[in-house]
């Protein structure tokens, strides 16, 4: 019996030939489906491709009819490209890696309408976590409300819920904290119990006072000094222990005091705001009015930018640790597919350089020639070693002196991540802003707008700025009427310039929002002039109501904290002073007993 079946080589060769033919025939379809599937996963909405052509000989791939759905508007394309030509390095393909040396996009259009929805089921989008993260991030930023309803009625605060008052919760927390801390510290002090030691040392001091040095002799004297020194050492250890406890108690009391003062004051301010919200009493301060009017709008823009930063973080992670992702979609379990990046090897994906020239048609202000360049897009920035860069700008306009500039640098080569994105547009039409609380809307016309975001690790600084000198004001049907409504409409409708600056600063976990706008300032001025006294009186009533509920509890909390300070801290301090006094007295006695002899002779035990 022969081991090798030689006649099988013919069908085997045929099988291999069939596989090669199959690859050639189906390569285009395979590439098209891969681009669609991978693109959809990245964008979080449908990415469709009309056709893909693979030219193995020249190492190029031509994609035709690329449509990328806008994840925020499924009936619109974020971008559409007539033709995409990619020059692909062949060698990395053998390592299942995609290195695109250059990419050229032609016939690019933005915001084109779609015939079918490009939405995908939420669970299929790999970016759902990123979207959720950004949405949660934005939701934690408090936006004040602004309403004029409270000015028209009687201030009725009967709906005030005690459970919603933060001062009460905070005060209860302080009382509980003070009680438990006092018990714990008293227990510790009892465990230390320096009193027997103090008494014993005092007895020793008294005994040493009556000692006759001549009667004791040198040996006896040395014995007495040794005993006294050992007692002094023990006293020192006790002093150190009591001091440690004293420091701990002082720190704890200081923390309780801070909670009882600053913490309660902050909680009370929040309670005032809550109570004011119940009666829809508007704030008359511009820093409160502007965020209420424009905060959401600015936050939405910054949120959009942060979403793409989040996406970049997901796909362009730093470091070279093995990375895991869910395996391929198949009948069998997908398992995990793990990447093992290595220094001096190709990254899993690298786009060295991409260039796009495109024009926007029409006669509007956005029409013109544009140019965009991208370099260093890679899934393993640590391997590539350089940040990803993007520059896009308008190179020629058809109408007016418009400027469009977008630039981004994403440095994920090492931690902390450093991202910087900025866009500046001038002369382009700005959106219409609806100011619901005023019952008005303003078509901003042409103006300047910029959006920027700088993030270093967890620290974030984002800014959205709009300025226009061509606002067209319109009063909405069913908007706020009455004396105050008319007065505010009169104030804003005369404004010939609108300027809004929204900033988000802080860490990703604790961002803070500030909005500055001349519209808010103008409204605050007009309100103060017209209804300032009325609002102040109503606010006084609201505050009085809150104070009447929380004052007693707050006072109790402060008393309890003071009690801890006087009872525990003072007791510990007293014990420490007593210990130090006895220790000092004993050390003095030791010195008295151990005078230096002539000629520098020392007694045993003398330092």
């Amino acid at each position, binding site marked *: 019996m*022969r081991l090798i079946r030689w006649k099988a080589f013919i069908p085997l060769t045929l*099988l291999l030939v069939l596989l090669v033919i199959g690859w050639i025939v189906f390569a285009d379809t395979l590439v098209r489906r891969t681009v669609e599937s991978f693109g959809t996963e990245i964008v979080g909405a449908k990415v469709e491709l009309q056709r893909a052509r693979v030219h193995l000989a020249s190492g190029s791939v031509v994609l035709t009819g690329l449509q990328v759905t806008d994840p925020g508007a499924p009936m619109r394309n974020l971008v559409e490209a007539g033709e995409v030509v990619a020059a692909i390095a062949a060698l990395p393909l053998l390592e299942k890696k995609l290195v695109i040396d250059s990419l050229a996009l032609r016939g690019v259009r933005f915001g084109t309408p779609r015939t079918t929805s490009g939405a995908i089921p939420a669970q299929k989008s790999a970016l759902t976590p990123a979207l959720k993260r950004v949405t949660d991030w934005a939701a934690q930023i408090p936006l004040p409300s602004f309403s004029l309803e409270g000015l028209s009625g009687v201030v009725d605060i009967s709906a005030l819920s005690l459970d919603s008052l933060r001062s009460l919760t905070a005060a209860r927390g302080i009382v509980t904290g003070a009680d438990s801390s006092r018990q714990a510290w008293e227990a510790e002090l009892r465990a230390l119990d320096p009193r027997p030691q103090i008494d014993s040392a005092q007895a020793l001091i008294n005994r040493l006072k009556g000692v006759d040095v001549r009667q004791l002799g040198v040996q006896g004297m040395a014995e007495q000094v040794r005993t006294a020194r050992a007692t002094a050492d023990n006293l020192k250890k006790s002093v150190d222990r009591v001091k440690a406890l004293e420091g701990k108690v002082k720190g704890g009391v200081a923390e309780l005091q801070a909670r009882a003062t600053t913490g309660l004051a902050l909680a009370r301010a929040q309670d005032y705001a809550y109570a004011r919200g119940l009666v829809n009493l508007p704030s008359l301060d511009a820093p409160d009015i502007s965020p209420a009017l424009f905060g959401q709008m600015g936050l939405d823009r910054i949120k959009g930018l942060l979403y793409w930063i989040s996406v970049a973080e997901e796909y362009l992670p730093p470091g070279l640790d*093995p990375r895991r992702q869910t395996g391929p979609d198949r009948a069998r379990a997908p*398992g995990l597919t793990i990447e093992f990046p290595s220094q001096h090897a190709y990254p899993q994906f690298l786009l060295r350089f991409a260039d796009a020239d495109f024009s926007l048609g029409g006669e509007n202000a956005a029409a013109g020639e544009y140019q965009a360049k991208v370099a260093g897009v890679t899934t393993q920035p640590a391997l590539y070693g350089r940040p990803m860069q993007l520059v896009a700008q308008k190179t020629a306009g058809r109408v007016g002196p418009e400027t469009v500039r977008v630039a981004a640098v994403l440095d994920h080569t090492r931690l902390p991540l450093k991202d910087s994105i900025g866009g500046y547009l001038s002369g382009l039409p700005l959106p219409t802003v609806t100011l619901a609380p005023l019952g008005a809307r303003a078509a901003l016309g042409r103006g300047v707008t910029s959006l920027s975001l700088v993030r270093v690790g967890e620290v974030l600084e984002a800014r959205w700025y709009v300025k226009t000198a061509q606002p067209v004001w319109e009063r909405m049907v069913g908007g706020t009427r009455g004396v105050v409504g008319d007065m505010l409409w009169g104030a804003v409708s005369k404004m010939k310039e609108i300027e809004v600056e929204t900033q988000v600063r802080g860490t990703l976990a604790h961002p803070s929002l500030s909005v500055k706008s001349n519209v808010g300032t103008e409204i605050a001025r007009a309100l103060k002039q017209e209804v300032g006294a009325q609002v102040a009186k109503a606010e006084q009533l609201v505050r009085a109501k809150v104070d009447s509920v929380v004052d007693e509890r707050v006072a109790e909390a402060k008393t309890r904290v003071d009690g801890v300070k006087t009872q525990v801290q003072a007791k510990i301090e007293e014990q420490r002073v007593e210990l130090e006094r006895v220790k000092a007295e004993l050390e003095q006695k030791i010195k008295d007993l151990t005078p230096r002899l002539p000629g520098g002779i020392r007694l045993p035990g003398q330092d």
Partner: protein
Amino acid sequence: MLILKLIQQLIKTLNSDGTPGQVAFGMALGAALGLTPLMNLHNLLIVAFAMVLNVSMPGFFLGWALFIPLGFALDPAFDALGRALLLGTPALTAMWTAWYNTPVVPLSNFNNTVVLGSFVAWLASFIPLYFVLRWAVGRYRADVYERLKSTKVFRAIGASKVYNVYRLFRPE
């Protein structure tokens, strides 16, 4: 019809095609296709081996068919084994990294936990599987077949007009 065909193939394979060793070797090779995810480079190599080596091809296909359900059932275990090898054994990380960055090797999808886990499990069980199957085929031919061949059901299955394409690759 499909089940009938499978039973007929089973009977003919176990009974007539080649020595028990050839059938067992073919089945042990075919087990790879059943146990590991099909569309992978190593399976292409295994098919090539099965064609070139003088083993029972019907045995190979039978092994494949028999081990498919087992492959599905053992996926969680393969996944766990793959994770242990790829992620839980730091001593192997250098080797995986080298393989991952070597041309052609990554095309095998060795870095997938189910692929690696099932492949290693198949490889480890190959020799024991071969001996167990060889013994089982021998016992079948000696005992079971002799008792079954006279039964009505057995004769009916044997007479059904199902194809004998497998004979193309009968062991020589």
